[in-house]
């Protein structure tokens, strides 16, 4: 379950070190030492955290990726917790945007948890940092994760909650953010979805509504460098199938019926779209759009 990397390059930053993140010095209980893989930069003062559910919907994954991408395109570092679902999507989006991202772990920096994120960790260390307050070798124990959430919010100017169930860990991060005087943002979701419960409650309690990355940037008084624009140019059957796709999973049979194409044909079109990164396939031959743009 736990992948151990015996020889990992890491750096120790104590509270007295000049390289210690200034934002963390200001919180109530800053860790005495931080273990860092990769590199923290001056630019990381401008950071926003994107957090949410581990069992995320395709909608949430697409939103988190999109936010990660758009934030980094505007020069903002994306902070998250490397968990499955929203966290991983936010990191991935930031990497796609070509910007910086920081993963805050609840275990030692030499331990990959969850284990399937080995490649993601390698990419994040290359384009930002993976850090933890726990010394290397510390296993991922349950109680450590809520504690590290204060670092996620502490490192950022604001926290964006994308999806979360009633008792989600993202609630802890949002509470920490309020304690630390950080902004709290929430992205609305479908009314009936369980994953929308937390962001909607936060919105009722006064969190800022986010439907565009500009909403975050303006609230934090950051300059908009890169406005949200994008389009996908497709033709013929590909255009027809793409138009039918949404962020709700649809089975290949249903898509074939709605597009009026035989199943043999639609499979070929979908593979083509998938190869271009426009479509994602989920377990059970269900398809969704891979991006919110277009």
């Amino acid at each position, binding site marked *: *379950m736990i992948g151990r990397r015996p020889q990992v390059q890491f750096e120790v930053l104590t509270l007295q070190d000049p390289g210690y993140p200034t934002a963390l010095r200001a919180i109530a209980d800053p860790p005495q030492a931080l273990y860092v893989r990769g590199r923290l930069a001056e630019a990381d003062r401008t950071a926003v955290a994107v957090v949410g559910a581990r069992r*995320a*919907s*395709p909608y949430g*994954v697409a939103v988190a990726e999109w936010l990660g991408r758009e934030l980094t395109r505007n020069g903002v570092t994306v902070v998250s917790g490397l968990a*499955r679902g929203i966290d991983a999507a936010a990191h991935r989006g930031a990497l796609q945007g070509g910007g910086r991202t920081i993963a805050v772990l609840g275990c030692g920096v030499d331990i990959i948890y*969850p*284990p*399937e994120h080995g490649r993601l960790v390698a990419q994040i260390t290359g384009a930002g940092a993976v850090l933890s307050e726990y010394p290397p070798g510390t296993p991922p124990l349950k109680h450590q994760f809520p504690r590290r959430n204060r670092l996620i919010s502490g490192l950022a100017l604001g926290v964006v909650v994308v999806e979360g169930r009633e008792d989600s860990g993202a609630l802890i991060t949002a509470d920490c953010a309020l304690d630390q005087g950080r902004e709290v943002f929430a992205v609305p979701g479908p009314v009936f979805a369980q994953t929308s419960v937390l962001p909607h409650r936060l919105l009722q309690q006064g969190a800022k509504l986010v439907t565009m990355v500009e909403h975050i940037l303006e609230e934090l008084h950051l300059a908009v460098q890169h406005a949200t624009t994008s389009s996908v140019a497709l033709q013929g059957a590909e255009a027809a199938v793409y138009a039918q796709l949404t962020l709700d*999973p649809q*089975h*290949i*049979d*249903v898509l*074939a*019926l709605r597009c009026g194409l*035989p*199943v*043999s044909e639609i*499979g*070929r079109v*979908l*593979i*083509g779209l*998938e*190869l271009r*990164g426009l479509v*994602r*396939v*989920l*377990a*059970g*031959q*269900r398809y969704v759009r891979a991006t919110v743009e277009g």
Partner: protein
Amino acid sequence: MLARVHSAAVLGLQAYGVDVEVDVGGGLPAFAIVGLPDAAVQESKERVRAAIRNAGYEVPPRKITINLAPADVRKEGPAFDLPMAVGILAATAQLNGGHLDGTLLLGELSLDGRIRPVPGLLAIALAARERGQPALIVPERNAAEAALVEGIDVYPASTLAQVIGHLEGSAPIAPLRRPPPPAAEAPAGDVDFGEVRGQAHARRAMEIAAAGGHNVLLVGPPGSGKTMLARRLPTILPPLSWEEAIDVTRIYSVAGLLPGGSGPVRLRPFRSPHHTTSAAAMIGGGAGARPGEITLAHRGVLFLDELPEFHRDVLEALRQPLEDREVTVARAQLTVTFPAAFMLVGAMNPCPCGHHGDDGADCLCSPPQVARYLGRISGPLLDRFDLHVDVPRVSPADLTAPPVGEPSERIRARVCAAREHQRRRFAGTCACNALMTAKQMRRSCRLAEGPRAFLRTAIERLGLSARGYDRLLRVARTIADLEGAAEFGEAHLAEAMQYRVFDRSLRLSG
């Protein structure tokens, strides 16, 4: 006095001659059977004695010795009842034994002298013809299967008295003639693909599987129709040829699974053993070297529902017969080879709770749990499946006005056409794309530069494993055959990729 009656027995699927020698002589009254008889043969004494008495003859109170030659092979079952009874009557001069040479007798006797059916008659009749035995007297209920063999006379008898009348010449039985081989149209089964609504993707996959003889793995939540699809696969396979039908009938005859009085098996077999099945029952063997489920599925479909629940040793034991199309079972006493050319259809849930990737219900399994569940199918076994098909549970509301499925007959016509392409391409050296050798593959799956580049991109972007590469080409070849295309290109490869879900990293995502 001595009498000799010819009979036969079956070992594996092959019959061998057994001579029943009866000696009735002086000494204290006794009845002894020698020649490695098993319990059922030992009990023949009582049945034979009663049957002879009730037929109006008598068993003299003398020393009766019966030898079953060859004496070193174990004899099983009650099929020697009839030859023993006839032998006793001949040895005691109650019957003129002049006609016994060249006649082979088989049958179980009931106490009142009636003759009951015995298994394996078709195999015995085939062997009798080979050895030049011109006549067979067999139980009436089984006579139809023996009569499938040309060149021998089959006399159906229902009582011991009838047999005696026939041998004495006083009341000869009319020989049963072989039925003419019916035209090669397939008989209607009791299931049809037309009954499957929706599931267009899975139906298409079954058509491709049938056209190329590919093994299929169906993955889907409980109640999504995996069994329904598998059960209908035999109905879209090409109909059994006469030779194949005889082949299958012989196996069922030996296994004692032919309904009495029936002709040859005309429908491709469909076997669906439960997941608690033992290795011996699956592969064949046991004390009497009986054919297993894989042999009963010969030229048909073996369906393993709940694949991960099968014992690991049973699943691993399938690998070699899947490759060799036959299985050799060695026991201390004997070694038998059974044919096992079957299509394997496996079915499983996508995760322990069954709802991974199901729109209708939430899956609560964690990614490691799902991975562990799927890991129960070993890589080498997974490799034997050319197509992996996701079978969803699609709600009727989702499929607005679902079209009624295409009937099996129409699908079968396309399958037969595709098989014809393959037959011509391989010129009889290989029956279908699933069985292509590496050399045949290199020749018939040549890719142009365009499709080759497409394939490279796909392998990188979609995370297709190198292991699945061969399988992908085979399936793409079959898709091209279904279209009647000589060359195959990107479109065929793209569709084939849809049926390799297990090669792709997507199993763990949402």
